[in-house]
């Protein structure tokens, strides 16, 4: 396997590990809760 592909796999593995950690820590549910609240900052209020 060439160098760029190896580096790509390594970085992909790191980000997949971060993603998995976030998922198992319940972050998607928190993102959902946050998105459901009407964000007054987004509205500029």
């Amino acid at each position, binding site marked *: 396997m060439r160098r760029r592909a190896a580096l790509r796999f390594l970085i992909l593995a790191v980000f997949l590990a971060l993603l998995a950690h976030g998922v198992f820590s319940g972050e998607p549910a928190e993102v*959902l809760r946050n998105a459901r609240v009407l964000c007054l900052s987004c509205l500029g209020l």
Partner: protein
Amino acid sequence: MKLGRIRTGVQTFWLLFLNSTLPLKFFDFPVLNCYSCPLAATSCPLGALQHFFALRRLPFYVAGELGVAGVLGGGLSCGWACPFGFFQDALYKLPTKKFKLDFKSAEALRFMFLALMILLLFGAVLARTPLFCKLCPAGALEAAIPIVATEASLRRRIGMLFYLKLAVLLTFVVLAVVSKRPFCRFACPLGAILSAFNPLSGVRLEVDELGCVRCERCEAVCPMRIKIYETPNSTRCIRCLKCLDACEGGHIHVRFELTQGT
């Protein structure tokens, strides 16, 4: 069929899908589409990122999503799926006089705007509030205007910040009519994050150096004003692939690689 037409179809699909009210807001799709929009189906990665920053927590999930999207496609979602990018593409089609910023001033402007936007993004840690969202033009277009227009109770809370947000949107709308994708080019931190992966990402542009005559047609159509023949995988490229249509000799190629590479 020209790639440009296919891209318009794909952008229309994502515009409708990302604003279809489907219950997918636990997922941050890597485009600028405000989750406060009444129609939004997914969450905005920048909004979610700032939520965790404001709580002074590391955003593992959002960072992981953005990293995976970046490694696989680089800036591909900017060019093919971002609703705010599509909006700017549509504005540029209005028949008016167009302007091209010269390369040096454009780079200086980009650096200044991006630095400010990234400062606002990370400023959420100190301010404990999503600073970038307060000025985000996509938020103004997709959430602030429709919600404030339909909710009488919120109209009473309008202050200077709301008008400032509208002014930012208006500035980029005017700029988008006369120049290509000004927000993507000068100010979008999400595009800067995703495109930073371009030199390594799976979606790759390649130029046939023997056939290329450096006619600069690719640079002329590029919304980011990149010399494709010099840096086909530039960290500014949004992977719109307009250069493929523009190259008369067909010397620019796109391919997806995961296991190959030099």
